[in-house]
């Protein structure tokens, strides 16, 4: 059993599991949406004293912070107990495209050229990762949700705003991938 779980999971198994998690949270009386945690963390850091947007009772979101804690533990388990030695089965076309950007596919989940020590200790590396994070954080709060809140929970509930947000996610992602990444790398 453990040997099977150690293999990379096929898309349908993952899709079913994600839907299960969403349903589980509904049964617990909550709604699946991860990026709300970023706001709660700002509140915990004291942002509520300076800004009304962060002035709310963080305890109402305690369950979501516990979910976040669990997701970190899940990452640890996946990297240890369930670690797979097989390289990511990335499509050859993507490998070729990335090579044109001088990003080498190393078989890991994330390229060491972007997340490795050398890059993150360079000014360019820090700026790219920090600024990328700012875009994700700002964008998800502005749009009122991220992939979990809009693409999964929102679309499942036939929310037009969520569809607009998902179209936005993709428009932004395509712009970055096809026009901006070649300028950055």
């Amino acid at each position: 059993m453990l040997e099977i779980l150690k293999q990379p999971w096929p898309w349908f198994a993952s899709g079913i599991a994600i839907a299960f998690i969403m349903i589980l949270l509904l049964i617990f009386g909550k709604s699946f949406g991860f990026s709300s945690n970023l706001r709660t963390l700002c509140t915990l850091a004291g942002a509520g004293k300076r800004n009304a947007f962060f002035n709310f009772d963080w305890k109402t979101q305690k369950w979501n912070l516990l979910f976040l804690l669990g997701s970190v533990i899940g990452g640890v388990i996946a990297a240890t107990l369930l670690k797979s030695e097989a390289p990511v089965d990335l499509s050859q076309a993507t490998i070729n495209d990335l090579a044109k950007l001088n990003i080498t596919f190393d078989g890991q989940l994330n390229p060491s050229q972007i997340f490795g020590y050398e890059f993150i200790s360079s000014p360019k590396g820090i700026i790219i990762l920090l600024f990328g994070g700012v875009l994700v954080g700002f964008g998800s709060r502005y749009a009122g949700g991220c992939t979990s809140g809009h693409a999964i929970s929102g679309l499942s509930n036939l929310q037009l705003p969520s569809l607009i947000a998902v179209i936005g996610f993709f428009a932004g992602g395509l712009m970055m991938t096809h026009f901006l990444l070649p300028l950055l790398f």
Partner: protein
Amino acid sequence: MKGIKFILAGILFGIVMAKSEAISWYRIQEMFRFQSFHMYGIIGTAVVIGLITVYLIKKFKLKDIQGDQIIFHDKDKSWKRYLIGGLIFGLGWALTGACPGPMFVNIGYGYWSMGIVVLGALIGTYLYGIWKTKLPH
């Protein structure tokens, strides 16, 4: 420990995201280049099952474990905030290869440098908070 069930749900989420490689920068690039069905399969399967389940929950007025009827809140009717916010989010998603959940799963996986992305995301969230009233919604 009423909270333990949320930790367990989170653990499952972390394992699923990592084992299906949805936390992979490479996989996100592959998705935005339309070179594999993988990520579309994950999101598509989740949405199809989600649609059916939400429909059934509403139809049969199912209750949560506290005994309250499960209710779904409609999002505010608008398009500006969703389109502009979504666009900005997408730019960051393709650059860092991580949306908010996977950032934290990646840290657990051992990608400590994702901490810089998380720090950025917290700054971005804070900036939204202080500019909120000036932004079109």
